[in-house]
């Protein structure tokens, strides 16, 4: 069974189409990265999945349970972390964790203690007195400690320092090993690259690309950097190759398709070093936003 499944899920706010016919299928045990710039519709998707907002068209299911019609049943198997930590200012961290645990039911308190340790949270402090990052930790610990079948995470690491970011990745990996599914909405590409099996890229309410990291990279351009003994030569224009200067005696090539024509062209030149690498997720991502409107790639 799928952890998340949506069919033509759409949401319109007034004149704005925030989400346009989204079809998602995240299987159980999968870690799915949901990428998109601000305002692309990531949070809208999660609000629809949680039944907080009502779909204008289409439907969504969590473990086969309709998100809008039966949210309470669905939420028993889900834990959610919002991008902004909205908690009760007068409660301490410990009280908040206890409250959220009682409302969710079935929290693993031993694991919660481990997490409090790992994220170095002072649970005696009132939420009012915590910084944004620390409030975010309270939310994260509460969600992770439920060991829910599905973690819905909406930019969960905003406000966390790099050490805590590592603690977060460790916790997600642990969850994955236990068979939990994770839906990670983010615009931190390194985070997605580190933990996700599959990635979807959202742009202006539409899913413009989806696949494993390897698939996405394959579709992107390969990057070849070459330095020369002496000044960089002028090469004839080549099919599928974009060239840019990278210093006085170096060139940088972005190659879509076969690399053979470029190698042939370079054979007669005084090449000093040549490095080739796959595009980073960042380059794949920027590709969708820089190069026209997403249709350009298709």
């Amino acid at each position, binding site marked *: 069974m799928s952890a998340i499944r949506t069919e033509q899920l759409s949401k319109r706010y007034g004149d704005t189409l925030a989400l346009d016919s989204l079809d998602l299928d995240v299987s159980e045990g999968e870690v799915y990265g949901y990428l998109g710039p601000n305002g692309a519709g990531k949070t809208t998707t999660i609000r629809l999945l949680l039944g*907080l907002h009502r779909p204008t068209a289409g439907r969504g299911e969590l473990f086969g349970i309709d998100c809008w019609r039966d949210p309470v049943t669905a939420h028993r198997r889900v834990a959610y972390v919002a991008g902004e930590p909205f*908690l*009760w200012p007068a409660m*301490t961290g410990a*009280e908040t964790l206890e409250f*959220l645990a*009682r*409302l969710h039911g079935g929290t693993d308190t031993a694991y919660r203690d481990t997490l409090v340790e790992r994220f170095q949270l002072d649970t005696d402090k*009132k939420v009012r007195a915590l910084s944004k990052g620390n409030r975010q930790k309270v939310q994260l610990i509460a969600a992770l400690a439920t060991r829910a079948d599905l973690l819905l995470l909406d930019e969960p690491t905003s406000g966390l320092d790099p050490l805590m970011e590592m603690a977060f990745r460790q916790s997600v990996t642990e969850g994955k090993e236990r068979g939990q599914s994770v839906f990670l909405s983010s615009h931190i590409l390194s985070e997605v690259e580190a933990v996700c099996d599959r990635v979807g890229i959202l742009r202006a309410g539409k899913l413009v690309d989806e696949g494993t990291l390897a698939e996405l990279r394959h579709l992107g351009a390969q990057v070849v950097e070459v330095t020369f003994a002496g000044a960089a030569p002028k090469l004839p224009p080549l099919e599928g190759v974009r060239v840019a200067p990278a210093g006085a005696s170096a060139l940088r090539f972005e190659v879509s398709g076969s690399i053979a024509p470029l190698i042939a062209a370079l054979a007669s030149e005084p090449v000093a070093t040549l490095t080739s690498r796959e595009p980073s997720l960042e380059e794949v991502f920027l590709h969708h936003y820089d190069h026209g409107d997403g249709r350009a790639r298709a």
Partner: protein
Amino acid sequence: MATAALGHSSATGRAQLYGTVAIARRALRDARARTIGFAYLFAAVAYIQPVSYRHTYPTVADRLSFAHSFANNKAVVLFYGKAYDLLSVGGYSAWRVGGILVIFAAVFGLLAAVRALRAEEDAGRAELILGGIVGRGSAFFASMMAIGGGALLLWVAAFIGSVLGGLPAGGSAYLALAIVSAVPVFVGVGALASQLAPTRRVALELGGAAVAVCFVLRVIADTSSSLGWLRWVTPLGWAEELRPFTGAQPLVLLLPAAASALLIVSAWRIAASRDVGSGLLRARDSAEPRFGLLSSPTAEALRSERTSMIVWLAGVGAFSFVVGVISKSISSVGISKQLERELQKLGSGSVLTPTGYIGFSFIFFVLAMSLFAVSQVAAARHEEVDERLETLLALPVARTGWLGGRLALAGVATAVISLLGGLLAWAGAVSQGVSLSLPKMIEAGANCLPVAFLFLGVAALAYGLVPRATVGIAYGLVVVAFLWQLFGSLLGAPKWLVDATPFAHVGFVPAQPFRVGAAAVLIAIGVLAGLVAMAFFRRRDLTGA
């Protein structure tokens, strides 16, 4: 070089001035709805009183008998303050308009100052502004100027109201000034409370306590023969000592002027020297965990509303006890037939017996309990605005359960406070030797509930249908319905028109019987509205600010 430097600094100065003006304008816009609401109230009260006085006491004989009886009645003095001259329209209006509106002016000043100063810091917006080129001084005084603009509007409203009511322009201007003189003083109180308190809520509680103390001092000064000098201690008493229409003492204006200057300057000095976002009274940042009342969202609602409920309980309890105590001093000696008839118009029958007086006073408790019930729906809405509701509903928490729980909690709390009010009024009366039946007084407390439940349901309906407008609609309806009944009956509006407000269907228990039929209808409408509200809430998107 020198010219360039000069040009630069004057450009910065101009930018700062724009910044300051921008802050003042935004503060004015923030306060728009509240200021306009108060202005309507001021104009309405200032207009109604002289008109209804002329209408009710057309001859000198009527006025004389009124002056000899009613005005010296402690029960009336409690609400309206001391009367100096009840034989002229001006003197009467100064008493009835000034005595009551000055309390509203104090509340306005307090709310405005806390909103502009502490609430901005609470929300973290003050930091944003002070991070720019606008200095602390400019930001503080820009807020003060904006409130000054609001106070000016209130002055104009009271002035226009009483001129339209037929009072001379000069006297009206002075009366309006006497009323509004309380605004800057309580702006000072609110500004100072905003420096002391770490949160908006605590600031309002501190300031509210100050208003209550000033009011109690005035009550003591006005009702006791030997403690009249206490009037000089409370800003609400200064407004009386200004004596509009009754031998004006404009020099008294120096008192509010000096007091507000002192308070505002001290507030400013503290504001200039403390950390932004903190108060002199530090909130404790850490605490031992207490895990009580965390088992459900409803339990948590009780946990967070507890303090406010206790304050309501104490306030209503204290006032009903005082009403009980004072009811002994009511007597019908020297009351004219005319006045009797006027009071009967209000629907209370005879107010001149202890039970009549208590029955009449409890109408104000009906109003208070309706406001309390509505405040609980406002608190629920607040939970949604602050997006904590999103945190809750992402858990296995049902929407209907959440809203139903909050409404039930509000209903139970309203019932507890109301019944306790009845009990304490009984205790107060009995302590003075007035013979009064306890079951009848419990009934008087319960008599607050039908209208309060109706407004609870209607407020919930507004919440389900138009979440962003919930607070305004809910409070607005209660106030309009109450004034409707009050002025409608005073001005002799047709019965069907007066009957449109739920307040017209409340019996003056214990003087009159509890109206079971009307109560059943009011409660049924309230419950129905609540159920419909839940159906709508189940189907709508969560909606932020």
